[in-house]
């Protein structure tokens, strides 16, 4: 094994080294110059993305480390998306952390180790690697939720998240052990070969636990209870983080585990996912309507989007998986923006997390309001914004596989969804501002990034071909 042969794994190797570097930097420099660690981390992410482009842009599937690691074009795209979304999330977080005196270097270390977990999941090709990735990601994120140690709400949210997450991990492990027992291998390629009989009771048993764990990680109904609490309780910049990059990892988890390793049992897991997806769509959208807290509302909106992503898996074709991939990437882009607005609208002592805090935002900050309006229309799936294409691709995949009822449920639920997104726009544009609201964050760099984020939603909506192409190309 020489360096050349493991070049495809450079992103992970680099990240481990970078985490050590950032940790040391924080210990020696960070205490004296708060904020420097954040800048270094952003630099680390940019270099990482560049290294990924140079070394990990593989043209075909490369399996490394005795079959436990895989690098393919899909992994390349997902890792770049991971770098980008974490960088953007950290950029938005900075003013938030600063304003609340929690701008500590550990935050960045945790974010980077979560990113490492995400990468491990993206490139996992054995049950063990998957578990490693899941835990690395989850443990980093639990700590991030509790990062504001003065906040009781955050501690409670972290505790809930941790306990329920641990149960899910247990489920996953148990399901994996059954699959291992049936096939005698941990390797996903090996499992795919060994497992090709549907309706095998043992497989169904193992699969049940795995589907439950995957649904839990995604936040699919009825395993979604942790999600609104964690989203609401966590500091907003952490909500922004856990709402975005980890979804990329869970998409990869579902794709590698279900559609590759357990491809032989596709019929079985499709049957299990169908009611889960429908429930997720319905409950997510309906419950979001009655929320008065925007973080909770966006949490339920996330749940409803998960329903759409699962529909892509239910289609069970390459077209469906690439639709789910597209939806995931688009979702991450839109969520970065909308939570970014929440972060920028808040100040110490004013969390801007109630819906009524957005009344008359147009008057206070026209640019922020415009960005939020574009993001909300996009999330609702209205052209000319990119969210429209995400929904279109899912519906197309469902028609290709003849699922008329799922199409009807999906489109009706997107109308229900439109209602609560419109309400945010209504508050911002049609209502008068309340006098007490403080000024929004005015730092130029962050606002520029947010502007780009909103502009991307429009540009990708008007010219959707490149991203649609990419998503179709990397999934066969």
């Amino acid at each position, binding site marked *: 094994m020489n360096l050349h042969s493991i070049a495809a794994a450079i992103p992970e190797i680099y990240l481990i080294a970078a985490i050590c570097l950032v940790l040391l930097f924080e210990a020696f420099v960070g205490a004296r110059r708060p904020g420097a660690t954040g800048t270094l981390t952003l630099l680390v992410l940019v270099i990482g993305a560049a290294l990924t482009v140079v070394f990990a842009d593989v043209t075909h599937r490369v399996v490394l480390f005795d079959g436990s690691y895989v690098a393919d074009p899909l992994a390349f795209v997902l890792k770049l998306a991971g770098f980008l979304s974490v960088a953007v999330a950290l950029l938005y977080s900075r003013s938030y952390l600063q304003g609340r005196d929690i701008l500590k270097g550990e935050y960045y270390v945790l974010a980077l180790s979560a990113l490492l977990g995400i990468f491990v999941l993206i490139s996992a090709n054995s049950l063990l690697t998957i578990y490693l990735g899941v835990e690395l990601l989850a443990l980093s994120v639990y700590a991030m939720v509790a990062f504001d140690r003065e906040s009781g709400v955050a501690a409670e949210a972290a505790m809930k998240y941790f306990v329920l997450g641990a149960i899910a991990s247990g489920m996953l492990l148990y399901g994996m052990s059954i699959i291992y027992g049936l096939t005698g291998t941990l390797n996903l390629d090996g499992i795919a070969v060994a497992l090709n009989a549907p309706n095998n009771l043992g497989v169904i048993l193992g699969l049940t636990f795995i589907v439950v764990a995957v649904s839990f990680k995604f936040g699919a109904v009825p395993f979604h209870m942790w999600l609104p609490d964690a989203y609401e309780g966590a500091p907003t910049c952490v909500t922004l983080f856990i709402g975005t990059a980890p979804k990329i990892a869970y998409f990869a988890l579902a794709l590698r585990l279900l559609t590759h390793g357990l491809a032989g049992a596709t019929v079985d897991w499709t049957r299990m996912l169908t009611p889960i997806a429908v429930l997720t769509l319905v409950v997510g959208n309906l419950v979001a309507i009655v929320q008065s807290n925007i973080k909770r509302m966006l949490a339920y909106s996330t749940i409803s989007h998960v329903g759409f992503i699962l529909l892509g898996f239910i289609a069970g074709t390459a077209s469906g998986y690439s639709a789910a991939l597209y939806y995931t990437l688009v979702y991450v882009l839109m969520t970065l923006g909308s939570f970014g607005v929440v972060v920028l609208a808040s100040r110490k002592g004013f969390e801007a997390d109630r819906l009524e805090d957005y009344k008359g935002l147009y008057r206070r900050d026209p640019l922020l309001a415009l960005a939020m309006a574009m993001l909300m*229309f996009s999330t609702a799936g*209205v*052209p*000319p914004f990119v969210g*429209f294409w995400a929904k*279109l691709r899912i*519906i*197309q995949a469902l*028609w*290709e596989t003849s699922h008329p009822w799922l*199409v*009807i449920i999906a*489109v*009706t639920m*997107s*109308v229900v969804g*439109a*209602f609560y997104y*419109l*309400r945010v*726009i*209504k508050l911002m*544009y*049609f209502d008068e501002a309340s006098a007490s609201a403080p000024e929004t964050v005015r730092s130029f760099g962050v606002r520029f990034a947010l502007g780009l984020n909103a502009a991307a939603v429009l540009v990708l909506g008007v010219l*959707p*071909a490149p991203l*649609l*192409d990419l998503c*179709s190309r990397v999934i066969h």
Partner: protein
Amino acid sequence: MHDHLLSLLIWLPIAAGVVVLLLGERNIAAGRWLSLIASLATLALCVPLWRDFNTHTAAYQFVQKAAWIARFHAYYALGVDGISMPLIVLTAFMTIPVVIAGWRVISARPAQYYASFLIMEGLMIGVFAATDALLFYFFWEAMLIPMFLIIGIWGGPRRVYATIKFFLYTFLGSVLMLAALIYMYVKAGSYSIAAFQALPLTLAEQRWIFAAFLIAFAVKVPMWPVHTWLPDAHVEAPTGGSVILAAIMLKMGGYGFLRFSLPITPDACRELDLLIITLSLIAVIYIGFVAIVQPDMKKLIAYSSIAHMGFVTLGAFLVYAIVKATASTQGAGMGIDGAMVQMISHGLISGALFLCVGVLYDRMHTRQIADYGGVINTMPVFAGFMVLFALANTGLPGTSGFVGEFLVILASFKASFWYAALAAVTLILGASYSLWLVKRVLFGPVGNERVAKLNDLDGREFLILGALAAVVLLVGIWPAPLLKVMEPSIQHLVSQAIATKIPV
């Protein structure tokens, strides 16, 4: 230039709208003039469109095609035929009075107001010009955003309720149509509307697709019983919003029936034409009665719009009954002719009536009929215009209102005596609500002190209403050029509508 004429028509107003938005509220004087120039330039672009339009072919003209999403065979494909071209001209024409009417009246966020209308104009032209179903849907839905903001920001007291109702109603209709379009894409392998029209579909498929289209277009028209969003939206919308809503947006439902329902699902249309005809007649008669008792001028005109749009859907779906009754395809297109003329005419007349209400509202800040009376004494010129438009609304010969209604009633006579008898009731009802409105608002002694203090039209208002009156009369007296433009396309549509698409 002809290769890009339609693109220019779409993107010129949108670009101007963005510039007005960027100029911001501080440079609103420049923004106003830019809006006016852009809307005039858009109308000027319609001159070559009309002049160089070949009236001997049903094929799409001024065609432009570029790859948009190559992988999914979606194209940026534009083109017009005799059905869409007049509607594009109507759109370009009606935007100008809206811009002028807002000149001094809109004081809150005027730059956004003009930008919304200009962007809206481009999107509406896009709807009519798209020959790719995905592009059509793209414009169709995007159009909701500026309208949502127009009603929500510049509307009346209950504007939030009205605009959310408007958005959700139309959104629900649209997404079901989207599902149908994607279904056909999966079958046809292309989003081209022509490919959909040529795609063989079983009767069961056609029924479902017809239902999806019906919901989308019926909401937009709006047909009874899904019309309830319209009076709310109209009453709350600012004058400009009402004008665009009545003059153009409602036409999109009618356009959809002609472009999608009839040629794509002809067998389902044949089977279910009685349903549409019944709903249309209910709209004509029942909504006509409802209009009579409205105390609010805008609501009255809104209900009259629904009744008049009933004529459009009636005319469009008479084709099967005519073929059956006369056993020949000769003259089967008369109902569709009438529907088209009615759409153009209603666009002009309802737009003009809403502008008239706007003129009064700007002075008195009330739309209640009871607050007026004897306006003719203080505003004689205005009264003259309003009487003309009200008479045109009743279908007075010599105005554009007559041509459409007459053609549709004539066509229904061909189909069945009873259709004609019921449709003709509108002549009485239309006269009742229009003339009674005129009587209560304009005639009689001066109603109160505020009416006594009214000033007659200023130059700006005179210009708008004068131009509209001229066009209403022109179309009424000399409709031949309009009918000639539409003729080949409607013939082609009739042949598509009466053919069967069920695979053997």
